[in-house]
Each structure stands twice: as C-alpha cells, then as structure tokens.
C-alpha cells in the first residue's frame, strides 16, 4: 500500500477518515437500538455503549471524558431513556477509567475485558436502579441474560473496533 499521500486531497481524505470513523461508528451503533424488533424481554446488548467502551479502551487518547456527555445525550434522546441517564453513566465510567488507567501500568486484552465487564455490569445495574426509582420495580434477575450476552458480546464488538481502527489508520 502506498503510504505517501499523493495530493492535498488525499491528505484531507485520510485526515477526515482518521477523525470521523470512531464517532460515526459509535453513533451508528446507538442508532441500531431503533432496529425494528418488538420483544417482551430485554435481551440484546446495548451496542452503542459497547462500541463507545471498545473505542475508549483501545484508544484512550481520542476522546476526552466530555465526549461521553455528548454521546450520552444522543443515546438518551434516541432510545427514550430519561434524559441524563446515559449522560451521567457513560461520563462517570469514562472518568473512572481515566482514574484507573493512570494507576495500573499494565494493559492487555484480558484487562480490557475485565474493565468492560465491570463497566457493563455497573451500567446495566445503574440503568435498572434508575428504572426502579422511576416506578418500574422489576426483579434484577430478568437482566441476568442480558448481562451475560453483553459481556460475551464485548470481544466481538472489540474485534470489529480493532478492524475499523486498522482501516481508519491505514
């Protein structure tokens, strides 16, 4: 592959690709929540959150914690959560990851999965608790299948994000 840009148009194209692939894929993943399925039980993983988390764990430098605020607001509007839910949860998770990463000087895929596991569990539990506070006292047991599926979906989403990252920087 030719790594030397031929023209200023090439440079512009690669610049935009490098910058836009992470936010655009995350927004698309959030929009997947609108996929026309009508179900009686929460089963699918929250793909928007998984994509955001995968990008954040792979490339901590591309987004400041404030980016999670914007993505959270968008997710709240799209999926009909009470406004503020994803904003607060996602930004808190970003801040917590920043705190942890500067203290743990070691990273590999298993560590990423461990962080993702804790983040997913906290996210699902907090969303459930907000639901309870808003008058929807459902038993937490119902969310266990979704929790399992989301944790198992993380490596798949992470693979997709790694592929996108390679394509983005190619």
């Amino acid at each position, binding site marked *: 592959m030719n790594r030397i840009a031929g023209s200023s148009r090439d440079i512009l194209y690669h610049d935009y690709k490098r910058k836009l692939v992470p936010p655009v894929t995350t927004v698309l993943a959030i929009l997947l929540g*609108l996929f*026309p399925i009508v179900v009686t039980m929460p089963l699918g993983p929250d793909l928007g959150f998984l994509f955001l988390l995968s990008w954040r764990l792979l490339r901590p430098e591309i987004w400041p914690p404030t980016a999670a605020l914007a993505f959270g607001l968008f997710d709240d*509007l799209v*999926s009909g959560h009470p*406004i*503020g839910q994803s*904003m607060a949860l996602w*930004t808190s998770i970003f801040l917590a990851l920043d705190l942890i990463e500067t203290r743990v000087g070691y990273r590999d895929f298993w560590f990423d999965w461990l962080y993702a596991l804790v983040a997913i569990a906290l996210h699902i539990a907090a969303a459930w608790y907000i639901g309870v506070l808003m008058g*929807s006292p*459902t038993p937490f047991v119902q969310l266990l299948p979704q929790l399992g599926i989301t944790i198992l979906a993380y490596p798949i989403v992470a693979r997709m994000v790694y592929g996108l990252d390679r394509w983005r920087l190619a």
Partner: protein
Amino acid sequence: MAPPRRRRTGQSRRAQYGRFVTYVVAVGGVVVALFLLILSMLDPRAFQAVKNLALDVTAPISRAGSFVVSEVTSFSQSVGDYFEAGRQNGDLRDQVRALEGQLTQAQAAQLENDRLRALLQLRDTTADEVAIGRLVNSSWDSARRYAILSVGSDQGVAYNMPVRAAEGLVGRVVTVGHWGARVLMIIDGASTVPVRSARDGTPALAVGTGDSELRVELIEVGTNPFRPGDMIVTSGVGGIFPPDIPVAEIVRIEGDFAVARPLAAPSRIDYAIVQPLYQPAAVPPSEGGSAPTEAPR
C-alpha cells in the same frame, strides 16, 4: 498500550490547564445530568418537547426497516408450520369439535345478552378509535418496555391515550411526536392497569413485571378467587383505559396474587389501535344522550 508513567501532561502549562478544564467540564456534566435525571423522576413529562422531537426524527428509521423484519419472521413461521402440519391438523380437528359445542353456548348467551341489553336500553358501544398504527420497534436493550407506534399527533394521538390491538390491551402513550408515539406497554414495571375478572367481576390491578407477564394483585384482601384460564378485562376505574378491553389470561396462582399472560403479545401484533382517553362519567348519561364517553356498564 501502557499509559504514561508521569501523570503530568507535559511542561506546557496550556496543555495542563486544558486537561484540567476537560475534567472540570466532565464532572460538571455528570452533576448536570444527575440533576436532569432527578427532574425526570419528579416529573415524568419533563423535557417532553425535546423527546417528542427526537421521536419524530427516529421513528421513520424504525418504520422503514420493519417491513424487512416482518417478512423474515413470517417466513420462519411458515417453514415451521410446514413441518408441524400433521400434528397441527389433528389438534385443529379436536379444537373445532370443542369449539362447536362452545359456539352453541355462545349463541345462546348472545341472545340472552341482546335481550338484557334491550331491557336496559344500552346502546352498543363500538370502540371509537383515534388512529390505527403499526408497532415498529420496542426497546430491546433496556429493562424498560417501550414500543414505538407509527402514528402521532398529526393523526390525533395525545398523551396517555390507551393503545390496544385486536387481541387485547397493549399499553398507553407516553411520548407523542408528529408522526410517531412511544407506548408504555402494560408489561413494563411502571404500568398499572385497573382490571376485573371477566368471570365474576373481582376487581384487581394488573402490574407489569418487565418480562412477558403481568402480576394481578387483588384489591380486596381475602381468598384468591382467580383460577388459571380466567380472562381479565379492563374495569375502567380511574379513567384512561375504557372498560371491557381484554387484557390477559391467568396462567397460575401464586399466593395472594395471580400471574397472567397478556393476550396481545407485543412481539406478534402488527397493528395497534389508539383509543380516546376514557373519562368515566360522574353522572350516568341520560337515555340516548350523546355523551362523548360511556358510563361504566
């Protein structure tokens, strides 16, 4: 990727301050978001205008895709039907035999019903409808059970209107856009529907459990009069839901309450009917009066 050993951004004061400001904004954002969340909890209709707008933008996406999905699901259904045809044939024959007997009973009951109605001089209540729409999406990645309906305020849908399918009650409208509406389904934990037993009229409350079932809680304490197989219908108490819409079938009894399965399974219904808000008349309407809503029968 290993993080930098030193936590300082570098020698540049500007970079350090920039980093610091980012964190201040992020923490402030979390505080603001929590504040918005508390506002939403205190007033579920807060930010309704923003939510309505967002629904208008996103509803067409779900609507466009729903054709594809219904084709796929009906295809898998027909393949399954093909392989089970023999057994189903036998089952259906048994059912027809059983139903023939019930039909005769039903006709007798109908006749009696007509006679009694004529005595009471009640006119037949045809379910007046505001709009008919398609259920195009439900939240499949969160614990709340919402669905999106393909009609909105342009078709006359308004906040809190009851939504039903041909089979039974689906839920009520909580967010209205111009061409889409979000429906709180009766299986959501925050949904409570006043119901009564179709057999003996025992009043109860049907509370959602968040999965595919309802908890039917008795209002009067005593022995549980429900039996598996009982039908429950809306009672019309408290308004919103008009009386006598089928809601669910009791599947089992658990101590003080019963567990029921909704008749309108959200995953199988395509079309839903939005009905006007029901307001029980304080005074029964006069004979032949044209009151907009019916008194409870």
